[in-house]
């Protein structure tokens, strides 16, 4: 009488007080279409009845990078290691905006889908994961602007970027899922989390090397800085696209370890809390 996965038609499912304490990957796979539908709905709905539509996916990072270039590149005079500041900043901004939007949307996701949670069964983890997919589309759109900027400044990435960039984005995505599912579960119980998010995002951004290179952090404090997983992700992308080098191994490994720990923690907490979502939300 093994607790079977949701095999399509045959097979018994057993429901017990402690079932639902773990995440079943097989079941997530069975429901992959639903994941796709959720993501598609988010994308489809987002720009309905808006004049500029999908252009917003370009305008948001564009306006942000202009502001940052004026303030941090111009007024504050932050160095960018010989890379034109707008490009330098934009490369950092892309993964950051993806991460921030994912976390933001994921956190709100469980509460905003409360109608579904109390009516229909599906693996709950689908909801925060789907919330990270729409920002992925925005990221793809915003990347086109990067291509234009790099061409403008005559910067050519090496072949290495072909595998370094996807790896880096996967990393950012897993991190967003981990943090997003943790916060979304907490938000079901404590709506404070939702209130906190804008501040968290803001603080987190300035703690990450988006507008500055991590080299401006004093040597002896770098390990604290590297506790922030985005300190691994963002320079990785810059190394891959702008400096044609492999990122420094030690600090990257450190950030990666923190990221994986956060991912595991997020999923585990979500699994523990998901049983009573429908009763609480």
């Amino acid at each position, binding site marked *: *009488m093994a607790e079977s996965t949701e095999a*399509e*038609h045959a*097979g*018994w*499912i*057993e*429901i*017990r*007080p*402690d*079932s*639902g304490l773990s995440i079943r990957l097989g079941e997530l796979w069975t429901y992959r*279409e*639903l994941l796709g*539908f959720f993501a598609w*709905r988010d994308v*489809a*709905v987002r720009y*309905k*009845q808006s004049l500029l539509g999908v252009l917003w996916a370009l305008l948001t990072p564009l306006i942000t990078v202009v502001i940052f270039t004026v303030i941090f590149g111009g007024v504050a005079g932050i160095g960018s290691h010989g890379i034109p500041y707008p490009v330098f900043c934009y490369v950092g901004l892309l993964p950051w905006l993806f991460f921030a939007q994912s976390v933001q949307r994921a956190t709100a996701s469980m509460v905003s889908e409360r*109608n*579904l*949670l*109390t*009516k*229909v*069964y*599906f693996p709950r983890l689908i909801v925060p994961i789907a919330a990270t997919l729409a920002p992925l589309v925005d990221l793809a759109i915003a990347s086109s602007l990067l291509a234009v900027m790099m061409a403008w400044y005559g910067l050519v990435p090496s072949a290495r970027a072909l595998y370094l960039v996807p790896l880096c984005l996967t990393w950012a995505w897993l991190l967003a899922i981990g943090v997003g599912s943790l916060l979304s579960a907490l938000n079901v*119980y*404590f*709506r*404070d989390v939702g209130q906190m998010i804008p501040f968290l995002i803001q603080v987190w951004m300035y703690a990450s090397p988006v507008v500055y290179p991590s080299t401006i952090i004093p040597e002896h404090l770098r390990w604290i800085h590297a506790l922030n997983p985005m300190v691994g992700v963002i320079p990785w992308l810059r190394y891959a696209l702008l400096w044609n080098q492999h990122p420094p191994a030690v600090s990257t490994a450190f950030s990666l370890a923190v990221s994986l720990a956060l991912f595991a923690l997020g999923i585990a907490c979500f699994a523990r809390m998901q*049983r*009573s979502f*429908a*009763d609480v939300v």
Partner: protein
Amino acid sequence: MLEVASIGKRYRLGSRVRHDTLRDVLMHRLRRRAAPSLLDSPEHFWALRGVSFSIAEGEVVGVVGRNGAGKSTLLKLLSRITAPTEGRIRIGGRVASLLEIGAGFHPELSGRENIFMNGAILGMTRREIQSRFDSIVAFAEVERFLDTPIKRYSSGMHVRLAFAVAAHLEPEILLVDEVLAVGDAEFQKKCLGRMAGVARSGRTVLFVSHNLAAIQQVTTRCLMFEKGELSRDGATPDVLAAYLGGSGRRPIVEDVATDHREFHIQSLRFCDEDRPPGFDQPLEFELSVSLGQPFRTVAFSLGIHNSLGARLLSSPSVVDQLDEGKTTLSIRICNHHLPPGDYSLSLGIARGTEHIYYGDNLLPFTLSDLGVNEPLIQPYLVRMRDQTGAFVPGRWEKR
């Protein structure tokens, strides 16, 4: 197909300890430390407890019970929306529930898009939705509006579309909760027909409803819940009779003074106190009077009124002689032609032109929709409730 073994679901009583914000939790912790005795009192209640039953493949089982008896909790547990506190459930097949139709409908998406979205949420694969798409659209009667965002739909269209998607689910086990309460009369008929079709197709169905006629029509076996416990499990007619019978004894009117000193009404009641009157059954009332003197030619006029108070019928009759002391009279109204619904009595008593008594709003009662011998007209009567007019049996025959 479905085995439920002594499951229970305990909820926390919400009002006192809802921790919606962090501050609430902290305050609660602090207060509990300060005054432990105050908050150690039971904060939980069992919405369902000690419930066991099993359902074989292809059975169509009705679930009845008053509000709060645990029916919805049961469906929530079976559909895995929430986890049981104790016990276990084994399910042998894909479960789909129609707990709430239209789950996941998004106002900005078009009808077409919502069919796919909603279908996926209810557990259909994209291919299944595609193959049933035309049938869903036809069922919902929204062909012309397929590409309109559903925020522009009328509420009727919205509901029809929602039910249409749900009605095209083909799981091994189907849980249905009150979906028949939607849409206009025409659409309800369609829904009921669809339900009956599902029941006949050999699928396992658990059907929760307050619509007893629908339950009687569709199911063979019934579970009855009372205060979170399974109080009865048996053949549908027996359980329904118990359910209706247990809904409180028939009302009775006692000790009524009339406008004549020597004429006292002891009681007015239904002759058959246990069995609820089916709408096609005769109505029998019993009147006991106690007289201080003999009365001659007393006219009694019994009236039956609908829930709005309008008089639907009168049954006058005259009693020649009533002796001093106690007398019990009874009246049997055979062909009242009343459709199922809520009614009350009025009673007028007179001697010649001399008024003795008039009272109305007596013995409020319900004529249930059970008992009709013709299953096909039942759903018709149910949805025509209060609009049927007199119910007069008749039959079209082919020549």
